[in-house]
């Protein structure tokens, strides 16, 4: 399987990046994870022409061709960081590659809660009609106290957390398979989401 892992922040120092790097290494036998950065991507500004800037299109293509996407999100002010939000807006506003894409959400934060509120918001966001990702239900991987969580080799030092992450990841592999089955017969809804428009909805157009 081939996944991409999106680092949900543009900060140069990020434990969410470390978490993805650890997953990439730790699960290398089970799947290939390519890590994508959002640093420096243009800020979403809702251009009339609905054309994605080149860098966004490149990321969109990666999402499109991946078997699944892992998003590692920090929590800023009880929600997802603006730079991650901006990327999702671009993708929802232009090419919509997330539709029916299996997604696993993970998150690391310095405090005890491990970005739980941001993850909650992210689920709601990914459920919006133009994103409509297949977010793996119920499994939530929250890494609290993330500043102390990695050693100099980038390995996760909390053994229980490693086990938990392994379980989550196995579930995700399964979830990707199941989702595949599900969406085989689902092209009608997919098409609808690809063409979704808030303008039309408000006029009583497509649902």
């Amino acid at each position: 399987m081939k996944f991409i892992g999106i680092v949900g922040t543009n900060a140069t120092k990020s434990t969410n990046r470390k978490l993805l790097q650890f997953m990439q290494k730790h699960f290398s036998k089970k799947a290939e994870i390519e890590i994508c950065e959002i640093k420096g991507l243009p800020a979403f500004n809702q251009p009339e022409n609905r054309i994605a800037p080149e860098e966004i299109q490149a990321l969109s293509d990666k999402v499109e061709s991946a078997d699944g996407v892992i998003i590692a999100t920090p929590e800023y002010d009880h929600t997802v960081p603006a730079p991650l939000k901006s990327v999702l807006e671009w993708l929802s506003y232009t090419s919509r590659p997330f539709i029916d894409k299996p997604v696993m959400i993970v998150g690391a934060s310095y405090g005890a809660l491990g970005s739980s509120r941001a993850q909650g918001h992210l689920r709601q966001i990914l459920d919006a009609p133009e994103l409509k990702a297949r977010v793996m239900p119920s499994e939530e991987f929250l890494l609290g106290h993330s500043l102390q969580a990695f050693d100099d080799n980038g390995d996760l030092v909390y053994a229980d957390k490693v086990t938990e992450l392994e379980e989550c990841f196995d579930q995700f592999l399964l979830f990707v398979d199941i989702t595949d089955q599900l969406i085989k017969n689902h092209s009608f809804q997919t098409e609808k989401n690809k063409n979704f428009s808030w303008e039309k909805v408000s006029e009583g157009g497509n649902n």
Partner: protein
Amino acid sequence: MKFIGIVGTNAAKSYNRMLLQFMKKHFSDKAEIEILELTDVPMFDESDDQSDSDIIQMFNTKISDADGVIIATPEHNHSVPSALNSILEWMSFNLHPFDGKPVMIVGASLHPQGSSRAQLHLRQILDAPGVNATVMPGSEFLLGQAQKAFDDNGDLKSEGTVDFLESCFTKFQRFTEIANLLNVPEDLNFKPGTFEVTAKGHNGDLPMSVTLSKDRIEDIDIDTSTETKGIADVVFTRIPQEIVKGQTLNVDVISGASITSHGVIDGVARAVKMAGGNPEILKKRPKASNIVQKDEEYTTDVVVVGAGGAGLTAAAKVLDEGKNVIVAEKFPSPGGNTVRAGGPMNAADPEWQNKFDAIPGEAHRLKEIKDMKLDDIDPEYRDDFKKLQKQIGDYLDSDGKYLFDSKLLFRIQTYLGGKRTDLQGNEIHGQYDLVKILTDHALESVKWLEKVGVSFDKNEVTMPVGALWRRGHKPMGPEGFAYIQALQKYIEDNGAKLMTETPVKELIIEDGKIYGVIARGANGQKITIHAESVVLASGGYGANTKMLKKYNTYWTEIDDDIQTSNSPAITGDGIKLGLSAGADLVGMGFSQMMPVSDPDTGELFTGLQVPPANFIMVNQQGKRFVNEYGSRDQLTQAAIDNGSLFYLIADDEIKKTAYNTSQEKLDAQVKAGTLFRDDTLEGLAKQLKIDPEVLVDTIKKYNSYVDAGSDPEFGKDVFDLKVVKAPFYATPRKPAVHHTMGGLKIDTGTHVLNKDGEIIDGLYAAGEVAGGLHAGNRLGGNSLADIFTFGRIAGENSVEDKVLD
């Protein structure tokens, strides 16, 4: 009442903007609403703080000054637009204008129930501790089907909608009045007395006593004797000053020292609690620095930019010449990188050095130099080289048992040590005329410093880390600080004006000549200093990773999160100022890594930092991996090849040769887990998760090489002590950015030159800000020689040009 309305999107067309514009017009007789747009707000980036930029400051001031804020948010993907997230993140990062601010949320969308989810998210965001707004409950104003809601005048068509909006707005006005009552400062009373608490320092807890009277913080006294002299001072003087001056705990933390800054603030808060007061009240008070200051203007003979070693030296020389000088310093205390220096400064002083015995390996090194082929020496150095060959030959023939040195050996080693080739194949070596000035006049600098008040330890001749020869003059007292302390006292006693927290932002240039500088004062005021000439002495750019990466041509990669041993102030400001006057640059691609730095902070003098003769470097497997006497570049590359992290092993005797430390500091570091100590090597290995057998074997072999005076494995040839006496130590190390060799192009008179090689009238540069001398690699101990030598020249010449040869 005055409100700010924020349009929650940066889109060119927005119904939410129309809604706010309607509210502004419709309620103009009840309140003033000023609309702010997000169009120019940069994307939030934690690692690129733009809190000081005009746009972010504008939002901060307007929100702070307003009675309340109305946010009109669209809904994007079931949440608020990223543009709105972004401004709220800026407003919750270092600035907190929303704290306690009454906020009303409205939203317009195409969908009939649109923006309800976004409004809910927005409430949660505004409730986050960093934002902490007081959001009006209930009264959700959602404008659905916005595309049909407005007429051509931009007025809401539906009377019912307007009525509801009016009722919401009236309620918000009342809410604002009541909510702002909570923001009226509360009275604070203390039980008077002096309270003993602790502040968190780099090397453990520091005792701190806080004296409170009935209603004031009178005094904060911190015992910093266990801290690295000079560096932490900034925090421990500036934060208490701000707290006492503003009678507030709302003070800006000092960049690069946030942990210790918070340590002081938290300590004072604890004392306030002990005295029965509520520290939260103090945290809500305005900052001392918000007290507005008038712009300032000064006139002097010479202005010096930067109060490091080069700057203070130049200033002292200006005073010696009988002229006036102002030194503008960016940080709260002087010293820059100089205060961090290990101390020894290189100068060939054979008369003194000859009194010391040669140590094993030195004769061999001399012979190697003598045996070099003339063809391998660049033409301009050949005459000197031939003379040196003869000097060495005579010394070796006489079977000298004493430590040899000469100006020529100093010169040739500086030249050879600085010769490098970058990734693109460009060769660089030290510019002959600059190297000659350095090596001929460094000893005069030592003598001059003695006059200024620095005393040197004559009983020891050291070889600094990264140097090639024992010619280090080590000051008595706390190393780098010793120079700064003496120089600062000297210039202040002689009437210089030292302005701290005054970063220079611009040069005053008229018709190609420099007439002074424009700086920014601690409280944001503009400071104009008119002068006949300007000396740039602002140091290099080791703490500016972006700039390093931009110019780098030497390292295959520089990590975004690389640490540095430099002061956070060292961001290449002087180089940029020079460029603004058309200066030429030289050698900018070459930067130096310090292979032996603290893995967490980039600092040099944590743990046991000993002379290289006593380095025993082992990798994470417990094995030696390099000749510890290698150049910095070799050590850095070897460390990178071994996973960057490695350890310096020492015993109780080697410990005594460490720079800049004390038993108390070491104990504190062991306690903090940043230094490892054990009574046996096996135990030490276990602490490091290394196989004990491997480490024991490594040390056994090393000890035998010390006895034999040679190392068959890696070729180390200069040794001092063996590792025998418990307890044993391991100091974790990693490479970090240490020095930037490139900089402004200068001539031997320190005039800054333009691209045509012409002097820029009135502009001088000395120290790390200038390039050409160290070329591809600076030898340890040569910087101090550089800054005091060229600093003196800059000071003299900025008054009246003299010719030196």
